[in-house]
C-alpha cells in the first residue's frame, strides 16, 4: 500500500486515477475483510461515485485537495451522512447518520474517498475491539490476537494495507494503543484541536479525533486537514500550525524526557527493549535524552481510577440519550419507564452497562465527593505534574502499551485487567496532551513477532512538534516492519508512487 501523500500527489498531478485507487481498496477489503472484520460497513457504490466525483474534478482542472482520491476508513462513531453510525452497539444497529461530522466535511473538502465504517469497541469503551456487538476485529499480524481498541478496526485496516489512511477517536488510548498493537502510526491531537461535531460523545472532557496512518507524514497531512476552529464545538481553537510542512525536521537538540513511570517493571521486557533501542536512535540523531527516576509523575499510577471515574461519569450522562425513543431500535414495554429499562438493559453490552453503572454511582448523592470530585482533583495533580516536566523537556517518550497484542479472550473475564491496557495512554488523555505512537520494532523470541509502539508526548497545542519528531524518528529508523498483508502487490502500488 502506498502512502496517502503519494497517492494524493499522483491524483492531483493526473497520474493516478481515483477510481482505480478505490477499486484497489475495495478489492483488498473484499479479499481480507472477512478474516479481519475490520469493517462494519463498506458501501462500494458510494465509494465509486465519490471516486468518480474526484476524478471529474481533476479532469475539469480543479484541485480536489490535499487528500485527493485517497481511500479513507472512518470509525463507526464519526458521522458520515447516510452511512452507518452504530458505534459498535446494538442500540444503534441500523441507525444512519442524518448529517456528516466536521471531520468528514473537511475530508470530503480535501478530496478524500470514504470507503467504509470501521469496527470498534461499543461506544469506544474497550482496548481490544472485543466489546463490539458485531464481533471482534482480528490483528493482521496474528488473527488469534486482538488489534487493540477501541479504534481496532481502523488500526487493522491500515496495518493490513486495506486503506492507506483511517480515522479513529480517543478518550483514554483508543487511537495510540491499537496503532501500537498493529504496527501503524496513530496520532492523538491536543484536546480541542479537532472538532467533535458529529462524533458520538463518550467522555466529553477527553474525546478527540485523530488519524491512523502508515507513517507520521501521512498522519500530519491528515491532521492538518481535520484540525482547526469549528463554531459547533466550543473547545476548538484556531491557528493550528501546519504540520505537514514541518515533518522531517531534525531531532538535534530536542530535549526528550523519559519518565521512570513509563518504563517500570510492569512493562513487558520486550517492549522496554524496543523502546530503549528507539531512545538510542533518537540520541544518535542528536536528541538529548534524559531518563528520569520514578517520582516526577507521582500521581500517574492513579490515572486508571481517575480516568475510569471521570470518563464513565461523563459517559453515563452522554449515553442517557440512547433511550429507545430518539435513536435506534426499541424494546417495547407497557409504560415509558419500562421501555427505557428494557431497551437500555438489553441493547447495551456488558461493558457499556458496567461503565454507566460506575459513572452513575460516582455521580450519585453520597458518593460524589468521595469518587467524582476526588478524581477531578487528582486529575489536576496529574496535569500539573506533566506541565512541570515540560519546563525541562520538549517531549516525553516511552512505550505506548505496556504489552504487545494479546490473545482474543485473554482479558475479557476481568474488566480491570482490560482497563490496565490504558495505563500509559490514559494519563496523557487526562492532561489533554498531543501524543503519537510510532512503530519501533517487533518482539523477539518465542512466538509470533509482534509490533511495539514508541509514544511521544508534547506540550498542549504542540501537535506539530510531536508529528515532526515522529517523522524524523521514522526517517532515521527506515521503513518499519509491516505485516505480510500490507505490501501485497496491486495495480495502485505498481503504478506508483513508492
Amino acid at each position, binding site marked *: 500500500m502506498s502512502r496517502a501523500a503519494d497517492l494524493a500527489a499522483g491524483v492531483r498531478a493526473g497520474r493516478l486515477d481515483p477510481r482505480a485507487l478505490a477499486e484497489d481498496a475495495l478489492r483488498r477489503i473484499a479479499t481480507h475483510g472477512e478474516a479481519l472484520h475490520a469493517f462494519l460497513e463498506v458501501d462500494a457504490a458510494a465509494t465509486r461515485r465519490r471516486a468518480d466525483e474526484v476524478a471529474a474534478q481533476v479532469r475539469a482542472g480543479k484541485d480536489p485537495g490535499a487528500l485527493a482520491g485517497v481511500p479513507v476508513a472512518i470509525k463507526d462513531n464519526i458521522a458520515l451522512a447516510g452511512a452507518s453510525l452504530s458505534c459498535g452497539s446494538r442500540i444503534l444497529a441500523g441507525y*444512519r447518520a*442524518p*448529517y456528516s461530522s466536521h471531520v468528514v466535511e473537511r475530508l470530503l473538502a480535501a478530496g478524500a474517498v470514504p470507503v467504509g465504517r470501521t469496527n470498534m469497541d461499543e461506544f469506544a469503551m474497550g482496548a481490544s475491539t472485543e466489546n463490539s456487538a458485531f464481533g471482534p476485529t482480528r490483528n493482521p499480524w496474528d488473527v488469534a490476537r486482538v488489534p487493540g481498541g477501541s479504534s481496532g478496526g481502523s488500526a487493522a485496516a491500515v496495518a493490513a494495507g486495506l486503506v492507506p489512511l483511517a480515522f479513529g477517536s480517543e478518550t483514554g488510548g483508543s487511537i495510540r494503543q491499537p496503532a501500537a498493537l498493529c504496527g501503524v502510526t496513530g496520532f492523538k491531537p491536543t*484536546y*480541542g484541536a479537532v472538532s467533535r461535531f458529529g462524533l458520538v460523545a463518550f467522555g*466529553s*472532557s*477527553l474525546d478527540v479525533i485523530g488519524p491512523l496512518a502508515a507513517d507520521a507524514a501521512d498522519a500530519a497531512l491528515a491532521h492538518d486537514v481535520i484540525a482547526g476552529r469549528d*463554531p459547533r464545538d*466550543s*473547545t476548538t*481553537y484556531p491557528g493550528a500550525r501546519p504540520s505537514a510542512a514541518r515533518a522531517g525536521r531534525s531531532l538535534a537538540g530536542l530535549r526528550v524526557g523519559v519518565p521512570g513511570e513509563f518504563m517500570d517493571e510492569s512493562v513487558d521486557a520486550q517492549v522496554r527493549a524496543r523502546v530503549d533501542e528507539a531512545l538510542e536512535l533518537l540520541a544518535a540523531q542528536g536528541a538529548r535524552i534524559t531518563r528520569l527516576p520514578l517520582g516526577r509523575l507521582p500521581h500517574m*499510577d492513579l490515572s*486508571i*481510577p*481517575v480516568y*475510569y*471515574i471521570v470518563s464513565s461519569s461523563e459517559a*453515563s450522562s452522554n449515553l*442517557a440519550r440512547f*433511550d429507545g*425513543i430518539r435513536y435506534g431500535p*426499541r*424494546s*417495547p*414495554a407497557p*409504560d*415509558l*419507564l419500562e*421501555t427505557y*429499562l*428494557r431497551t*437500555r*438493559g438489553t441493547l*447495551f453490552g456488558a461493558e457499556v*452497562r*458496567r461503565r*454507566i*453503572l*460506575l459513572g*452513575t*454511582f460516582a455521580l*450519585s448523592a453520597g*458518593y460524589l465527593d*468521595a*469518587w467524582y470530585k*476526588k*478524581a*477531578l*482533583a*487528582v486529575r*489536576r*495533580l496529574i*496535569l500539573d505534574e506533566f506541565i512541570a516536566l515540560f519546563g525541562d523537556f520538549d517531549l516525553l517518550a516511552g512505550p505506548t502499551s505496556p504489552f504487545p497484542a494479546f490473545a482474543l479472550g485473554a482479558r475479557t473475564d476481568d*474488566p*480491570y485487567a482490560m*482497563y490496565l491496557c490504558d495505563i500509559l495512554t490514559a494519563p496523557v488523555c*487526562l*492532561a*489533554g496532551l498531543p501524543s503519537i505512537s510510532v512503530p519501533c520494532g517487533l518482539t523477539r523470541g518465542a512466538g509470533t513477532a509482534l509490533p511495539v509502539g514508541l509514544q511521544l508526548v508534547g506540550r498542549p497545542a504542540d501537535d506539530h512538534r510531536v508529528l515532526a519528531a515522529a517523522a524524523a524518528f521514522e526517517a532515521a529508523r527506515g521503513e518499519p516492519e509491516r505485516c505480510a498483508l500490507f505490501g501485497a502487490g496491486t495495480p495502485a502500488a505498481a503504478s506508483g508512487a513508492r
Partner: protein
Amino acid sequence: MPEQPISADDVLAIAKLARLGLTDAEQRAAAGQLAGILAHFRTLQGVDTLRVEPLLHTLERPGEPAADVVVPCAEARERLLSLTPHAREGFLVVPRVLEADFGPASAEPAG
C-alpha cells in the same frame, strides 16, 4: 467514603437511576464487578486533595459565545423521520407518557 462493598440493592438503585433494566443475575454480577473495580480504585482516597481545585477539563479558558445568528436547518422533516422505524403519518410515534385519565386514551404504539 463507602467502606462496604457495593451490594446488589445498591446496584438496583443505581441501575434505576441510570435507566438500565437488569435481571437478578445481572445485578448480582454487576455488584461483584463494581465492588472489585472500586477496590482497585480505593487508592484514590489516600491522596490529600484538600487544597486542589477539581479539574473539569484541560482547556481552562472561558468559552467563546456563539454569534447570535439564525442558521437554516437543512434537515428535511421526511429525511429525519426516515431514520426511525416508529414514524406514522409524518409524526414520530412514542410510548404514552401521561396516565390515561389525563385525557382520552390513545392506542399504545407498537414498539
